[in-house]
């Protein structure tokens, strides 16, 4: 039996988790959208953020201080990927995968060679927890809003504009005297710092860090960005301001979790969760492409031809 009230009861939890993943999507936005660099480091740096936060809190650090260190750890991960790419000439995707794989071991070490570590809200002062889910939603959204404001400011500065130019047209950026290698490394570091922050938030929210907490983070982050974009474009036409782009990434994260919640509620097998995620992301990635290309595709001509032939047959 499908009972709508179970879905509704779970809703706040989905919104909270979605908002936390939305923060991750903001981090990914820097690499994926502004730098046009598909950075697979994030699966690892998300878990690094979670692991560092949880271990430091267990060691008696205040949660805020633990999260600052988590951000720095994430930035270090981004720095490594950036240097693998710029200094050693490794292709973006591979550079990210290498760091991600390396981080799996690093994260196990951080977690004291255990696959997971609990951090109970009863014992420690956490910034947010699923125990107080409404409060958790507010806190996650405050983080997201603060980051959106910071992005809006920074990417409107000379330095931020240099990073955007690097992503948009590296040849032009170099001709205008921009050190694109530095821009890439810097942006990847900041991006992964934010990803680690959201990892630290999720670990506190759920009360534990798991070495696999970041598995598939890249896909969830992409899903958030793209679902947000598709919907915002549908609502606000083509002209998207930077505010709207950023906010829609966070909203996309929330929507993604709600969609997943519905999938769970429909009692679709949870083993197939990743499959559904991949299908949903593939669909949302494909929609804008197909929409754009249909007008100029051979398929359209073929369909038109068929239609004509049918009509001719009817008239005959």
């Amino acid at each position: 039996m499908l009972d709508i009230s179970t879905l509704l009861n779970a809703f706040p939890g989905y919104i909270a988790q979605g908002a936390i993943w939305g923060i991750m999507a903001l981090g990914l936005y820097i690499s994926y959208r502004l730098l046009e660099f598909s950075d697979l480091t994030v699966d690892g740096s998300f878990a690094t953020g979670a692991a560092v936060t949880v271990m430091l809190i267990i060691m008696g650090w205040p949660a805020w201080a633990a999260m600052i260190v988590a951000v720095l750890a994430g930035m270090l991960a981004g720095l490594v990927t950036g240097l693998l790419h710029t200094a050693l000439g490794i292709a973006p995707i591979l550079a990210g995968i290498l760091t991600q794989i390396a981080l799996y071991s690093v994260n196990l070490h951080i977690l004291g060679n255990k696959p997971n570590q609990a951090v109970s809200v009863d014992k420690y002062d956490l910034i947010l927890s699923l125990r107080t889910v409404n409060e958790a939603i507010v806190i996650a959204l405050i983080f997201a809003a603060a980051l959106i404001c910071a992005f809006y400011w920074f990417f409107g500065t000379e330095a931020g504009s240099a990073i955007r130019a690097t992503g948009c047209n590296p040849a032009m950026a170099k001709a205008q005297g921009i050190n694109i290698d530095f821009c890439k490394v810097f942006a990847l570091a900041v991006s992964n710092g934010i990803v680690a922050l959201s990892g630290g938030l999720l670990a506190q929210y759920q009360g534990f860090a798991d070495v696999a907490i970041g598995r598939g983070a890249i896909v969830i982050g992409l899903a958030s960005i793209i679902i947000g974009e598709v919907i915002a474009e549908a609502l606000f036409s083509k002209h998207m301001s930077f505010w709207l782009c950023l906010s829609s990434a966070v909203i996309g994260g929330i929507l993604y979790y709600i969609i997943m919640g519905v999938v769970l509620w429909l009692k679709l097998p949870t083993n197939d969760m990743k499959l559904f995620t991949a299908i949903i992301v593939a669909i949302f990635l494909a929609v804008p492409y197909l929409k754009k290309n249909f007008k100029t595709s051979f398929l359209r001509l073929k369909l038109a031809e068929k239609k004509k032939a049918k009509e001719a047959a009817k008239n005959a």
Partner: protein
Amino acid sequence: MLDIKGVFKTFNPGSITEKKALQGIDLHLEDGDFVTIIGGNGAGKSTMLNAIAGVWPVDEGSIFIDGKDVTAMPEHKRASLLGRVFQDPMTGTAANMQIEENLALAARRGKKRGLGWEVTKAEREKYHDMLVSLDLGLEDRLSAKVGLLSGGQRQALTLMMATMVKPKLLLLDEHTAALDPKTAAKVLEITDKAISENKLTALMVTHNMNDAIKHGNRLIMMNEGKIVYDVSGEEKKNLTVEDLMKKFSELGGHFSDRALLG
């Protein structure tokens, strides 16, 4: 202003695709020289400009700009000395960024990029006035994405970006080749104006011999990675396309058909 001494560049050395693109280039430019460069496809014209810009290091030889040895200087550091416009209108501007953002990026060439606003209000007004004098109807579209502009508009904008911080040397690589004849003429006119008003030193590659003769005070012809002909002053002014064709066939080269057009 520019000194190139014994520059060699070979692409993919030792492989079957090995290409000796520059084979001993020596070139000296005086302050204010406006040199046009012609030569067949693959003669090494773009490669020479890329060597000056530092797209990659040269194999041998040295390059001085304004007395400064830039041979070991990476591309983004040399950029403060150079203005560049490329053949492909897409190359010189950032399509996803606004007109004013592109201009502001160029205004900071060679300067430190900090946490100040990328475009200030005063700049916005200045850009508006500059675009008015460009007369392409761009002055009221400062916040439009450059990707929406036509090829000619983009090249004119790139030219403005290349010259707004006065470069020691302006590098133009067939920057009108991708444009229709009318637009090409207009962009060339803007080029002439920018060079003479700012008293720039410039190298302009063109495949159009008439343009090569009409513009600038000196003309060089390249073939197989070498400078094979170099004229200036009265001699250059009196050149005809036939002279150039003859000169070229004497050297055993042949121009593609498009060089004959126009």
